[in-house]
């Protein structure tokens, strides 16, 4: 495996805002790489920098071992699927897809062949003559994909590719994207603010906020070992508790809270953590019951059921802790039905020490 795209200490400023702040990234070839972050975190700017639509103030961009920092877009082996697709409204589906090849001066016969092949790949045969305005959202999306992929880019950039689609279509297109990537064997770099999308599609994810990279890793790594509570909250649902480290005892770390009883988390004094910390527990790790469990969980907090939400195969309990914080617990439907809990009922929230994560309250930049 070699590196397909490398960003080396890239800085980009828009006016007074650092849109991209000292970002260094190495994306492997053939990888499905997602950049995840809230809007305004600089993720779209990174795509534009790779595409050559923006130039970095500092730092370098390398595509396939070639420094392309100052190259214009048409000299880069990169194509982009824009947010809202940016299809040319006055050109037919065929003309849209053929646009890049035509600009490159390909022979007409080759264009005809490549475009037909591409339209078959995205399952749009028979719609060649339609205008983009006459297509559904999903079809427009596929035209945008075909228009980029027909140029055989080394890297395909996708800016919020599924954001404009409804829930069902989105799931369909997720599978479609994976299939397309296998077939064209290009590196896909995808920008999204949908964490489930990133988790499902990606080989690796970079989490961004405020122009900075917070963490880069596989979905599993980021989900299980977030470097900060920001990352934890951005990836998957999280229950959060702020406190201070009181002591370390036997591989466990005791975190004290102003109101609630102290909690135990895995941790040793070798960790550099000190003082203010955040404890994060995933909702599926939390056990909620009316009476104290016999299992002897390491942690127990008192709470009151605030809301009960059914979501098909599980029940999500929202419970209010004594410090007014709302925590969530996801319980399989069978378990929830055997011992149902009602709104307003006092309950115990319990979990094992190894299922909580202790993270610095103020993360250091990575």
């Amino acid at each position, binding site marked *: 495996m070699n590196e397909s795209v490398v960003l080396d200490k890239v800085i980009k400023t828009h006016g007074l805002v650092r849109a991209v702040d000292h970002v260094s990234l190495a994306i492997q070839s053939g990888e499905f790489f997602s950049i995840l972050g809230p809007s305004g975190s600089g993720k779209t700017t990174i795509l534009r920098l790779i595409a050559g*639509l923006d130039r970095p103030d500092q730092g370098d961009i390398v595509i396939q071992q070639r420094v392309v920092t100052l190259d214009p877009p048409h000299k880069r082996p990169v194509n982009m699927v824009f947010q809202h697709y940016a299809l040319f*409204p006055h050109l037919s589906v065929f003309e849209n897809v053929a646009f*890049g090849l035509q*600009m*490159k001066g390909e022979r007409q016969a080759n264009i005809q062949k490549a475009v037909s092949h591409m339209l078959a790949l995205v399952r749009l045969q028979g719609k060649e003559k339609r205008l983009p305005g006459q297509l559904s959202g999903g079809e427009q999306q596929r035209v945008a994909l075909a228009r980029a992929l027909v140029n055989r880019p080394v890297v395909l950039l996708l800016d919020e590719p599924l954001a404009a689609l409804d829930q069902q279509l989105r799931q369909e297109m997720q599978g479609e994207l994976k299939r397309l990537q296998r077939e064209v064997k290009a590196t896909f770099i995808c920008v999204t603010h949908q964490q489930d999308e990133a988790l499902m599609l990606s080989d690796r994810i970079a989490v961004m906020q405020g122009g900075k990279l917070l963490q880069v890793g596989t979905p599993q790594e980021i989900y299980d070992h977030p470097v900060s509570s920001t990352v934890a909250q951005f990836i998957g649902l999280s229950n959060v508790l702020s406190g201070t480290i009181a002591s370390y005892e036997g591989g466990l770390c005791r975190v004290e809270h102003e109101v609630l009883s102290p909690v135990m988390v895995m941790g040793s004094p070798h960790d550099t953590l000190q003082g203010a910390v955040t404890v994060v527990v995933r909702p599926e790790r939390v056990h909620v019951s009316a009476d104290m469990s016999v299992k002897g969980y390491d942690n127990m907090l008192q709470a009151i059921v605030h809301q009960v939400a059914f979501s098909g195969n599980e029940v999500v309990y929202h419970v209010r802790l004594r410090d007014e914080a709302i925590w969530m617990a996801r319980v399989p439907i069978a378990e929830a039905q055997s011992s149902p809990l009602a709104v307003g009922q006092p309950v115990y929230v319990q979990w094992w020490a190894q299922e909580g994560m202790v993270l610095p309250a103020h993360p250091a930049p990575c």
Partner: protein
Amino acid sequence: MVGTGGNGLARPSCTMLNNLSDTSSAFPVKLSLVSASLFLGLFFFLPLILVFGVSLASRGLYGGITWIATWENYQRVFDPLVGVIFFRSLFLAGLTTFICAVVGFPLAYCLARASRHWQLILLTLVMIPFWTNFLVRTYAWVLILRADGILNSLLIRLGLLDEPLSLLFTDLSVFVGLVYGYLPFMVLPLVVAIERISPQLEDAAFDLYASMGGMFRHVLLPLSIPGFLAGGVLVFIPSLGAFITPYLLGGGQNMMLGTFIQQEFLVARDWPFGSALSFGLMGTVLLLWFLLGRTSVEKDPS
């Protein structure tokens, strides 16, 4: 895109009426329709009918109108001398429209893509000349272009010329005046059209290997056609009938239709012939309008 622009131009009143009849409160709609029809009838159709009536009458011995019906005025419209003036007008108006489009597009592009703040400033700058009377502004061009005018003295003082160029009272001076006068009417519709083109489409073109020229030719230009059509109509029609500009900057020799009509009414005092000429001009404009509408409808794929 092309088709909708053309249709919108060709049948604006139709859509307006449809929109009006859609509203639920029927009474105020009817009232406004009636008052609008009254207004149009009184101030537009009535004078038009009067002028048409005059165009069928004969000129009195000392000017004035003698009510003897005749087609003679319309026969005179096809006089070769009128033809020369007609084609000069057509040519100058066409060239004016073309140059306004060429000069206006970059300006309109800057305006459309400027930040809100700059857009306001630039739009105001485009509009400021309208605060001054058109006649005064055209006179200013006389001061610039005449033999001892600003331009000639500047060129002589710079040593680029030995003796002044005769710029005033040529087709060139008329043309300059027309472009100056009607440029804003091209720029404003173009700004509207360009604002509707997402900048992302330009990015997409660049990403798909288009050069600056390729992007312009294949994306910006075709998508700006509604603006060009609207601006073209707004520039072409008034410059075809313009009379102040050709009168002041063209002198007596380089007449255009507008000046010619004005002279028939006020100098030759031949109201019937002037009226017939006016109807000839209107007929030409309507014919061109119709042809424009036809071509845009044909291009419409739906």
